[in-house]
């Protein structure tokens, strides 16, 4: 059944590259989104049934598929606005839409793969199609970002493949599907699986946007159109997490579990630290959002490293963050259009230009800095609680200290943009208040989730983490 999804996707992709009528091109993307919706529901209904084959989502895969579906839908709407306002040619739209559908198909492939090799292949496909999306504006900066993304990402994903090879050595002749590997895990050689995990974490850090290969992820989010920045901060970060999680899932049944947790903790804290340094320095709104994503990715790793209590927190945080950040990227896209700049010195007084847009930004600010009632407040509260219960006071202190820098930088920069008039800010275009509705909806969801427990999401996460040792 899942094969049908891929076959129809391929047909749609080919048609999208050929189609030279803008309306048809956009309509085809919506047909694809409908197909993705069908896949999400189908996989959700089949969750408890044993399914043979290489492509079948577990509970975590289903959750991430739903997140991808929602953000893809809003991203498509915003891209239509983006293309209209910038008078994009029909060829540029065709290339974008074709690459976009390949990108989302590759992402969904990662969530569906039950075979480590196939997961890698989809991951690499997401890199290649992602490069075409970053190159959308075809200027010098886009070219630089694309080259760096393509090259470093390819190196990263190749190192990840070496990690798979080391896993194969440790697993002897066990087939590389996740179920068989989990069963064979207790007999694996410790040295090989440690090496494998280091390679995997290094290589796939490029997708999650954490240390060490985070830089190109920042450049990509900055140089690509805002709707793509939203995809990179949400679904693609989930892809990176999923890739690392699959190996964690296998190795957690061995004695290296505490060692892996320490490594994740170290990576998370270092990512937080570097993001804190850079977010204070940057004068570009999109880069600020990108560093904020890095901060949250670091927090997710810290939460995950705390073990049983942290698994739920980490995945919930990842899910909620995807919505909040997508909303902010969409709204910053409008700011970029109004001032024809994303540089802080060239923007200001946004409240007078777009009151609804400003309210969206303020709501987004509350959501992203984890101020109550943000859903991220709930997850961060749970994280600190679990750290305190386990007596990890020094981590609580370091993380809280670093978070202060993010709150300061984000509040300062957003308030300057919204409330301070800037004589250097030139208003190039006007925005329709309706354009702020989708980001407001996404950010509103994040705020509502902080008050009302998202049972559907929590149930899926609880089912997913059942396979991890308790």
């Amino acid at each position, binding site marked *: 059944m899942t094969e049908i999804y891929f076959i129809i996707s391929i047909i749609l992709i080919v048609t999208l590259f050929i189609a030279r009528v803008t309306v048809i091109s956009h309509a085809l993307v919506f047909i694809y989104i409908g197909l993705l919706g069908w896949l999400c529901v189908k996989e959700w209904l089949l969750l408890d049934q044993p399914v043979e084959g*290489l492509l079948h989502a577990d509970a975590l895969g289903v959750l991430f598929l739903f997140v991808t579906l929602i953000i893809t839908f809003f991203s498509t709407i915003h891209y239509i606005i983006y293309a209209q306002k910038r008078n994009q040619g029909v060829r540029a739209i065709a290339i974008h839409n074709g690459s976009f559908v390949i990108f989302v198909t590759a992402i969904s492939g990662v969530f569906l793969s039950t*075979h480590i*090799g*196939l997961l*890698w*292949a*989809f991951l*690499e*496909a997401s*890199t*290649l199609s992602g*490069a075409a999306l970053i190159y959308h504006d075809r200027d*010098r*900066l886009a*070219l*630089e*970002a*694309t*080259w*760096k993304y*393509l*090259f470093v990402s*390819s*190196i990263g994903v*190749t190192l990840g*493949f*070496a990690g798979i*090879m080391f896993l*194969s*050595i440790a*697993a*002897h*002749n066990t087939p*590389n599907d996740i179920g068989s590997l989990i069963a064979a895990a207790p007999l694996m*050689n410790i040295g*090989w699986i440690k090496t494998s995990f280091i390679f995997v974490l290094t290589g796939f850090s490029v997708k999650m946007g954490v240390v060490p290969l985070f830089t190109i992820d920042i*450049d990509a989010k*900055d*140089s690509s159109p805002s709707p793509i920045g939203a995809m990179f901060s949400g679904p693609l970060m989930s892809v990176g997490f999923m890739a690392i999680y699959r190996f964690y899932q296998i190795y957690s049944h061995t004695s290296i579990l505490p060692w892996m947790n320490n490594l994740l903790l170290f990576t998370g804290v270092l990512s937080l630290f570097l993001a804190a340094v*850079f977010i204070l*320095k*940057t*004068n*570009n709104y999109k*880069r600020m959002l990108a560093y904020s994503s890095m901060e949250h990715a670091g927090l997710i790793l810290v939460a995950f490293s705390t073990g049983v209590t942290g698994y739920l927190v980490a995945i919930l945080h990842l899910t909620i963050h995807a919505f909040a950040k997508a909303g902010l990227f969409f709204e910053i896209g409008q700011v970029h259009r109004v001032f024809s700049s994303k540089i802080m010195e060239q923007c200001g007084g946004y409240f007078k230009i777009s009151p609804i847009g400003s309210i969206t930004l303020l709501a987004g600010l509350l959501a992203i800095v984890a101020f109550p009632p943000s859903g991220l407040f709930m997850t961060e509260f749970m994280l600190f609680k679990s750290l305190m219960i386990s007596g990890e006071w020094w981590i609580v202190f370091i993380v809280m200290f670093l978070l202060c820098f993010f709150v300061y930088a984000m509040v300062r920069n957003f308030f300057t943009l919204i409330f301070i008039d800037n004589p250097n800010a030139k208003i190039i275009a006007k925005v329709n208040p309706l354009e702020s509705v989708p980001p407001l909806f996404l950010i509103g969801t994040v705020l509502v989730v902080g008050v009302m427990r998202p049972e559907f999401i929590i149930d899926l996460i609880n089912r997913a983490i059942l396979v991890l040792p308790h």
Partner: protein
Amino acid sequence: MISLLVIAFGVTLIYLAVAERMKTYNSLIAVQGLLLFFITYVELESLDVWHLILILMETLVIKVIVLPYFIHRLLIKKGGDRSVALVVPGYISLTVVSAIIFFSFLLSYLLHDQQIQVKYFTGAIAAIFTGLYLIIVHKQVFTHMMGYLTIENGIFLLSLAIGNEMPLLVNLAVLLDVFSSVLILGIFIDRLEAFSTLDVDQLEELKD
């Protein structure tokens, strides 16, 4: 026979460390592809038709013919063969790559794992680290891509060293990805030259 082929593969790595012309890099990568084909052919005795076709595609067709031809065309388009800017003197690179090969051998020998074949494992690890070394010490996007291809060849050899076969579908997907990644990297090298930025030092506009 296999030992000779792996040694020849090691020699290409040493040659890569001191090569000065772009064409030489391209030829060396093609020779590596050819050696990989022979190694695979000799190693995998009981092959079914599909796997044989796939390996032929990956090594002979893609690594030996298509990619080197594509890069060759790119070089001609950009004014023919040129010398690469060596940031580190050749003799130092020679020493480093020799040391990489030596330590790769030492590592493989000391591991004593029944699952791996020492010869291939040595070649694979040496190629991966030589590729990374080439990327670190060179400042041109062309040589960076050559470093990436060397790493790819190392990974191919690593999969031989392990001998754990993946399903045909997965192999096909991996092959398609590797092929398209190099092709797309090539296309972007072409674009970068349009901006006359073959040197990575000129790619630093994106910063805070």
